[in-house]
């Protein structure tokens, strides 16, 4: 790995500033600690509710049940947040492509081995999320790690895939989530309600698409720019006609 070092010698703020802020933070921490301390020793949470309904949810991992059934609306919006961050990063245009012509042979070798392992592991995490720790976000992150490794080796997405196809994969998770969630509205259910006997399968389907979208989005965030736009093109500043 290239040596990346950057020393920033900030002028240290005055002792007075540090001390005042330090005391304020201490007071904040102390009062928060008091607030926490005054909480009941036994949680008033929703463990019982979660457990009681887990059979209806289609999965047996309670966290997945919360994320993709009880509170799946949060998760849906969260996929939106991720996509939104990508829209934002792309709109900034990227400063300049990270042109590292030098490819580390060890990294190159490692990635040949690791990328398939990561992809497999990602699939495993996705599958296992229904009944054990794991799920779409973790699986997506592992998938993204594979992408990051590829980018570090100067891998480039082929041009024909970097336009519409890429954008399609990026939004797939969100769109399928909405489509399945709204699909049952036509069968007299409410938004995001699944029939219990189908819930498990539907959740896996949503998670599979979400994993793909999350993985590619996170990798794209790492890349930092829209690969379909030539990296050297200056961001245009003309706003209007």
């Amino acid at each position, binding site marked *: 790995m290239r040596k990346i070092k950057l020393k*920033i010698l*900030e*002028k240290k*703020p005055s002792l007075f*500033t*540090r001390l005042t*802020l*330090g005391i304020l*933070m*201490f007071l*904040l*921490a102390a009062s*928060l*600690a008091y607030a*926490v*301390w005054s*909480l*009941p*020793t*036994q*949680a008033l*949470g*929703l*463990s019982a509710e*979660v*457990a009681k309904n887990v059979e209806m949810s289609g999965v047996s991992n*309670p*966290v997945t*049940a*919360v*994320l993709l059934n*009880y*509170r799946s609306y*949060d*998760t849906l919006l*969260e996929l939106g*947040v*991720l996509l*939104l*961050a*990508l829209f*934002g*990063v792309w709109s*900034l*245009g*990227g*400063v300049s492509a990270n042109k590292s012509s030098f490819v580390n042979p060890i990294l190159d070798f490692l990635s040949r081995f690791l990328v398939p392992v990561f992809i497999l592991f990602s699939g495993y995490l996705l599958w296992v999320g229904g009944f054990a720790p794991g*799920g779409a*976000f973790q699986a997506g992150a592992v998938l993204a790690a594979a992408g990051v490794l590829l980018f570090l080796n100067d891998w480039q997405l082929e041009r024909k895939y970097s336009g519409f196809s890429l954008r399609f994969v990026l939004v797939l998770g969100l769109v399928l989530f909405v489509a399945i969630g709204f699909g049952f509205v036509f069968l007299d259910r409410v938004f995001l309600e699944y029939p219990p006997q189908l819930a498990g399968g539907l959740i896996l389907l949503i998670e599979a698409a979400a994993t793909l979208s*999350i993985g590619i989005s*996170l990798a794209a*965030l*790492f890349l*930092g720019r829209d690969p379909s736009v030539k990296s050297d093109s200056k961001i245009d500043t003309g706003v209007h006609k």
Partner: protein
Amino acid sequence: MTPAFLYALVGIVLFSIGLYGLILYKHLLRKILAINILGSGVFLVMVALAARTGDAVPDAVPHAMVITGIVVAVSATALALALMLRVDAETGQAVLPEDREE
């Protein structure tokens, strides 16, 4: 002292340290690190207090909320870093104008 309260206290300290760093330090990269630490503190409080169940399974709802929070945090961090690079490109320094030292 149970682990639940212990980690909640750690979360509170991290929250305060993050806030201190966010206000005091000028380099944007460090400010973004500070926000992440501050966020981790909040997440730790959220999950630690869910473990106040003795030996029983802890409450899964805060766990799910924190996973949501982690994804939101990484999204915000990515946007913040991209903005920081643009600030650096436009002004020559990765600090906010009011923090510049001439």
